[in-house]
């Protein structure tokens, strides 16, 4: 078997790459076609493309939802592209990249949640990749879905359901009893702290990304005003051109878009692992399983 890729392989590669880039191009097109540009400071939420009329409540389809679907589809084809033509013991650049990503997440899951949760790795990887790429979307000029509370709250609620599921795994009675610890009259506080978990997770992620976006807009606007004061005496169009906007906001962007986005993705995934891992004790589960088997036999 020769290692030279044949024409068919290359064609499929090109198709996957095109499918990866197509959603992003669609996002740019939608932004250019439907979002009205404005002069000066504009800090608004996601703009609504259209509204679907439903019997109970109208469903507005906003930029955040469309962009998060763009991320999902692009990531899907990125995964297909990376794993395309992967074979055992043949180390191409792509195979090494795929292996690195899988081993990274599996190592994280195993060291934070234990061997029992090794099957959780794809879920954690999905959250990590979705969150990171959603935040990085602002680098290519699109609205980043994570600066909309609805998207992040959806992920947080999903994690909350998983936490509750793993708490229930040791039996519903065991779950209810956990609210009355250490003393029964602290139950309201326990319930509040239970509900606060998804809220704080969603607010943490969304607040960090949104505050970065707001500060970037304010700084860009301030620099435009400052350069108007400094260079306003230049003749003609030169006087109106915001010179200070060249390059300086990029320094902030490195922190707010790249560093903060990746860090928040890591923290969200880390908290997911810690909360789910902490909700479940293997000893209780095994004891319950044993007790159940005993009653079945008797």
């Amino acid at each position, binding site marked *: 078997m020769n290692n030279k890729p044949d024409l068919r392989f290359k064609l499929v590669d090109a198709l996957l790459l095109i499918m990866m880039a197509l959603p992003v191009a669609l996002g740019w097109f939608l932004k250019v076609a439907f979002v009205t540009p404005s002069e000066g400071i504009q800090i608004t939420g996601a703009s609504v493309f259209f509204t679907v009329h439903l019997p109970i409540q109208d469903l507005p389809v906003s930029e955040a939802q469309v962009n998060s679907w763009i991320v999902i589809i692009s990531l899907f084809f990125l995964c297909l592209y990376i794993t395309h033509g992967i074979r055992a013991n043949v180390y191409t650049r792509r195979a090494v990249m795929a292996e690195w990503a899988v081993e990274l997440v599996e190592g994280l899951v195993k060291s934070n949640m234990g061997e029992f949760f090794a099957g959780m790795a794809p879920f954690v990887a999905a959250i990590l990749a979705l969150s990171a790429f959603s935040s990085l979307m602002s680098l290519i000029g699109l609205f980043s879905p994570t600066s909309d509370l609805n998207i992040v709250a959806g992920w947080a609620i999903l994690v909350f359901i998983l936490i509750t599921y793993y708490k229930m795994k040791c039996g519903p009675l065991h779950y209810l009893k956990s609210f009355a610890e250490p003393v029964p009259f602290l139950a309201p506080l326990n319930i509040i702290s239970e509900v606060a978990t998804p809220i704080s997770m969603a607010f943490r992620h969304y*607040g960090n990304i949104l505050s970065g976006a707001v500060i970037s807009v304010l700084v860009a606007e301030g620099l435009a005003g400052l350069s108007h004061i400094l260079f306003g005496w230049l003749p003609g169009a030169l006087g109106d051109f915001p010179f200070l906007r060249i390059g300086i906001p990029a320094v902030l962007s490195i922190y707010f878009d790249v560093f903060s986005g990746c860090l928040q993705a890591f923290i969200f995934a880390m908290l997911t692992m810690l909360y789910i891992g902490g909700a479940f004790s293997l000893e209780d589960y095994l004891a319950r399983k044993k007790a159940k088997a005993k009653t079945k036999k008797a």
Partner: protein
Amino acid sequence: MLELAIGIILGGCALGAGCAMIAGIGPGIGEGNAVAKACEAIGRQPESRSAVTTTMLMGCAVAETTGLYALVIAILLIFVAPGRFVDILLSAIS
């Protein structure tokens, strides 16, 4: 008279947003403490650098929560609340 009432609403919202961000002091001090202790720990045991850094980032993220609650409230007060309050005022007058 209506202008004055709307002015008071806008001023109150802006003032409230500013007051809410006083909460930024807490996470600042807390995260500063956490990073200082992490630096000390790395200085004592340079080989445990990666574990200490990961734990520190997690701690910082959790310590940041109260500050972010304040941030969310400030953002709501600036971008959402004025319109709401003006609507309430107008509907109360008419």
